[in-house]
């Protein structure tokens, strides 16, 4: 949207014959320069280096090693990220709908509190979950006190379950923030119209709010999925060397113990592919339609 408006500015300036193309270029240069230097160049360099052997020749050996040792971990990363994002999406849509449609002091209170996890860094979340979810951690001891769990055979949560719990806990508020802004753009008249023809709450959410905010929900999903795939601290401190583990832990393992940037970059490239495919899928089927619908109004 922003680039759209500065292109419009440039065009209007051209029309008025002042400044020309130079000013927008200069205005954009710092931002784009930073993006190129800090994102595009390392990104391209990382992909290129994944094809380099330790002697510097082009090779597929790094990918062969990934297939030999780390394929299960790559799939595990993908599964955990998809599962966490899906659960977080459902929770965030529910919470955003509640905040959008209900009113009162409790709603305001919830609206203020739900944001806290956003400000807590992943490493702190990792430490919290490590002690909260442990076999003799806070959760299990609490459940044992009220008799739901036997401490000799506690809930084993230091695995994909605890990982998903941690991811959902961290990502759902962030997604709620974005989805709520999307819901806020849906005019009250649509909701009232739907209610007046007899729509109940679930139908209002599923048939009115969600379809009209498809673009925003897509953005929230992509952001949550991308950051989940790339998270290191939570899996490292929660499951560490368990089998399977996430590909980020494997990247750290290759770099730390072997200095092997070839295989680390190969794993990273697979992560980029995971993110690109899901991003393209969502963008093609939701955002484009969303924008065109918006523009038709």
């Amino acid at each position, binding site marked *: 949207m922003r680039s759209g408006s500065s292109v419009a500015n440039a065009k209007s300036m051209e029309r008025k014959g*002042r400044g020309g193309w130079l*000013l927008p270029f*200069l205005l954009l240069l*710092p931002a784009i320069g930073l993006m190129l230097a800090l994102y595009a160049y390392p990104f391209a360099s990382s992909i290129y280096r994944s094809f380099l052997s330790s002697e510097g020749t082009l090779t597929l050996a790094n990918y062969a090693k990934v297939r030999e*040792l780390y394929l299960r971990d790559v799939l595990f990363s993908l599964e955990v990220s998809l599962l966490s994002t899906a659960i977080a999406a459902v929770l965030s849509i529910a919470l955003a709908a509640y905040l959008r449609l209900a009113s009162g002091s409790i709603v305001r209170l919830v609206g203020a509190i739900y944001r806290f996890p956003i400000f807590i860094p992943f490493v702190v979340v990792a430490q919290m979950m*490590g002690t909260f979810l442990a076999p003799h951690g806070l959760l299990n001891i609490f459940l044992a006190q009220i008799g739901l769990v036997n401490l000799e055979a506690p809930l084993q949560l230091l695995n994909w379950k605890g990982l998903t719990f941690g991811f959902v806990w961290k990502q759902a508020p962030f997604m709620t923030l974005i989805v709520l802004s999307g819901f806020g753009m849906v005019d009250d008249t649509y909701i009232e119209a739907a209610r007046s023809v007899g729509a109940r709450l679930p139908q209002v959410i599923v048939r009115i709010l969600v379809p009209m905010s498809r673009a925003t929900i897509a953005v929230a999903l992509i952001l949550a999925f991308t950051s989940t795939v790339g998270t290191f601290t939570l899996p*490292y401190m929660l499951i560490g060397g*368990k*089998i399977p583990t996430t590909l980020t832990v494997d990247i750290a393992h290759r770099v*730390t113990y072997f200095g092997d940037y070839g295989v680390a970059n190969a794993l990273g490239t697979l992560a980029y592919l995971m993110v690109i495919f899901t991003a393209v899928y969502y963008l093609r089927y939701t955002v484009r339609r969303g924008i065109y619908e918006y523009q038709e109004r």
Partner: protein
Amino acid sequence: MSRKRTALVIVSLLAVLVACAPPTPQVIEKEVVVEKPVIETVVVEKQVVVEKPAPVSMVYITAGDVNMLALGQNVLAPEFHAMYPNVTVSVVHTGPGDAGSRLIFEKLKADKDAGRAQGDVDVAMVHQKFMAWAMAENLLLKYADELETWKYMTAADARNALGTNIEGYAMPMFHSQIAIAYNPDLVPDPPRSYEELVEWVKANPGKFGHNGIKGGMSGVGFSIGWIYWKSGNYEKYAVSGPFDEAEVATWEAGLKEMKDFNQYVTITAGNVGTLDALNRGELWMGPVWVDMFYTFMLEGKMDPKMRLTMLEPGMPGQPMYFVIPKNARNPEWAKKWVEYVTSPEVQGKIIIERYNWYPGIDGKFVEGIAPPEAFDRLYKDISPEVLSTYGKSFPLIEYNDAMLEAYEKWVIGG
């Protein structure tokens, strides 16, 4: 009007760009006497006597866990400053494990590749693996034999690190050792060897825990000890070498047995994961670093009744070394720093008593100086004789890497 605004915007943009531009590195011409190590030490002595109080700023960079940073920043630097008021030591911390040492290596190599006459780092504290990387790139100064405390270094790893000859380039500050921590209430008679441990975990599934090879060196050490046991070839892997590719295939059977063994154990997240699980009672036994174990106990994070034991045929331990880069700005002060930390007083009062490490210098030079409770605490569960019999080295670098990959292939994979 709009043209003036345009010009104002461009000028302010340029001002911001210039302000944000990286500062040009300052080349400081210091008249500090940077003696080349080739020159006799007589000149060094003179410098001490003449003692010009010109302010000196030293940078000490350390790998290792947060206890390394605490040691440098809160204990060693202020005491050194009290001894030499014109010297301030800044402590930089790079992080635990070989990753931290890797960062230090990359920094020194970057300084060398950039062709800088004087680097930023005066003295560094690194793991054994670093020595192979740094010696290959010729980054280090040979200094150790000039120090007063060199005569106290009797350990073999003061001269050889994982197969690399390092004599004169490094001084160990301490030795840390991996041992098995256990809860004496729940494990009245702990297994004495790996063999007995295998039987024990079958009888008590889930009560022994280690972190595998990702996430912490205590698990790595335990796994390497397993390979030493199954192969029986410790001498070749850790002392004499050479690296023989054919040895790797011989580990397959032993590692497949470890995969079976792992079914009866809990895999933890790392060094701290194992310690915390032991403390909470989820685990009854697990491999830990001796110094982390006792430090946790002193800080109230570990049940004081927990004890330590070693497994036959042995478990690895490692020193951390002081090294001085070739292009250090203040090599003479760096040498004084190393001499200070390796002196029997500091080794006894700080290394043993406060940080629960085994000393870098020979234990007998420290015995009279460290308070008896500290000495006893450290050697109570693992006496010096047990330590010298069962305390092993980590293997030569090529074997180390091969063992980690073999673990991934046969214990994790397959």
